[in-house]
């Protein structure tokens, strides 16, 4: 029978009492479990987990580190213009951008590789990223490519394809054995890459068709959800690419042709929304939906101004495919969430780095040529 401790001694830690040791033990246990759960949630206990950081690290390992540039689609040029909605898209989506009217757009043409100084003739994929900015409304960002399907359908497949198609330092070309091993393990990618290789490539940026590839859901005013994909279809006649002989054209011929084309007048594209039929896969970007699906022409994109990447223009936008307005929602396609996560890492890294001027420059336009332009939207906020 111990006498009760006087009140002032209950805070005394020495000499240790059994209750003190038991209390310290219990406290330590609770703290350890909490901190351990936190470390688990943060992936610190799963070094094999594929994360956004690892994906961006692999881009840097393959392409080299180019401070200030996007880790992929690094070589690009800024464009601005408007999207004129004809109202037809409002049947499928309640997003403000589909109500009849005109919305400012900030876009970026780029080639799909993480090397900002690579000659254009060594690139294979062209992309168009857009940010629709309705006044007082919600922004919609999307990135599209001139390929019919995406080469992979999971982030893990993407990560593996990056390694399999990276140039072998010894030969400067991908190791055929590694590529074959990847394609054997990923028949969906073998099929998709076949379709990508077989596509009709246009002569440049202006006459290319840009496809969103990933499936999203349009939500209408009544809350009805429709799985969709979208494309920007050029109004310029499509001219088949005639690959320039090596060394015969300037290394930025794709961009210089685009700039020369835009000096003659605005570029126009139709926004075509394709609705899935029941049973069409929405979680597999390697598979195109069959021909004959319902298509809605939602309006016309007009791009009338081009400028080199610089402070405050498209350079400083993260074209995160999940910056979506109310009325457009993700589907069960796993790629947009992975892209969103990885773009965030890429954006954060390049935002903090010293900027080098882009390889793509835009010559000043003759006086008076700017008069036909629509007012440029502010790119802030």
């Amino acid at each position, binding site marked *: 029978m111990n006498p009760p401790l006087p009140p002032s001694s*209950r805070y005394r830690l020495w000499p240790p009492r059994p209750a003190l040791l038991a*209390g310290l033990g219990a*406290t330590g246990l609770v*703290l350890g479990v909490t901190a351990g759960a*936190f470390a688990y949630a943060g992936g610190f206990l799963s070094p094999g*987990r594929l994360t956004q950081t690892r994906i961006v690290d692999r881009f840097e390992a393959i392409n080299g580190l180019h401070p200030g540039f996007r880790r992929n689609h690094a070589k690009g040029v800024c464009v601005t213009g408007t999207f004129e909605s004809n109202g037809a898209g409002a049947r499928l989506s309640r997003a403000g951008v589909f109500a009849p009217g005109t919305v400012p757009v900030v876009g970026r043409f780029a080639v799909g590789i993480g090397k900002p100084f690579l000659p254009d003739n060594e690139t294979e994929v062209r992309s168009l990223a857009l940010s629709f900015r309705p006044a007082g409304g919600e*922004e919609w960002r999307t990135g599209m490519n001139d390929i019919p399907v995406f080469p992979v359908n999971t982030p893990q497949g993407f990560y593996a394809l990056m390694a399999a198609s990276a140039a072998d330092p010894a030969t400067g070309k991908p190791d055929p054995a590694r590529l074959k091993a990847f394609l054997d393990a990923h028949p969906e990618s073998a099929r998709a890459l076949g379709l990508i290789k077989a596509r009709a490539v246009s002569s440049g940026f202006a006459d290319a068709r840009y496809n969103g590839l990933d499936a999203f859901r349009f939500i209408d005013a009544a809350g009805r959800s429709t799985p969709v994909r979208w494309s920007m279809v050029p109004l310029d006649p499509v001219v088949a690419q005639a690959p320039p002989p090596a060394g015969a054209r300037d290394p930025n011929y794709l961009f210089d042709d685009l700039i020369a084309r835009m000096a003659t007048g605005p570029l126009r594209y139709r926004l075509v929304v394709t609705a899935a039929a029941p049973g069409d896969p929405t979680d597999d970007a390697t598979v195109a939906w069959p021909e004959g699906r319902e298509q809605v022409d939602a309006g016309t994109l007009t791009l009338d101004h081009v400028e080199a990447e610089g402070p405050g223009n498209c350079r400083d936008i993260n074209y*995160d495919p999940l910056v979506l307005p109310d009325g457009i929602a993700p589907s069960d396609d796993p790629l947009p969430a992975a892209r969103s996560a990885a773009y965030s890492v890429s954006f954060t890294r390049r935002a903090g780095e010293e900027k080098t001027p882009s390889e793509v420059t835009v010559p000043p336009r003759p006086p008076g040529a700017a008069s036909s332009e629509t007012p440029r939207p502010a790119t802030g906020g």
Partner: protein
Amino acid sequence: MNAPRFAFLSRLLHWLMAAMILAMLFIGIGMVSSLADYHWLLSIHRPLGIAILALAALRLVNRQLNPPPPLPADMPRAIRLAAHASHVALYALMFAVPLVGWAMLSAGGYPVVLYGTLQLPPILPLDVALYAVLRTAHTVLAFALFAVFLLHLAAALMHALVFRDGVLESMASLRPGRGGQG
């Protein structure tokens, strides 16, 4: 025994925010290392962070209206100082982490979407270099908040299991009123 307690509203705010902040810390650390869950976690992270910011403001006002009960008279000076400092740190971080998050999205040119068509205005102009600094600060401050939370949790358990001085009970009680009147 009718020991002094926190006011009922203070206790309600405390436990509500405890659950929200703990969830928030796990969502934050989880989403930056998850590809599949990134988007839906982020879509919870933004409105939950703004809710914590609003509740922190409400709580600071409530603290003036309903001051905490006095600490036990026999509590040593060192523990008193530690208690005071950790609460200043907790309050400062409850404001700083969400505010830096909001500022960071603003400087990065992201729309600050809460839910559906509900958005907050930017509180900074587009400035990606500033975004990069704030993005790092958001992480550092969140880790600091988790560290102070662990200290707070450890202190609460020590009060309950070792000191047995009624400090945890003054916050954990379910009884109405403030007690201490007789």
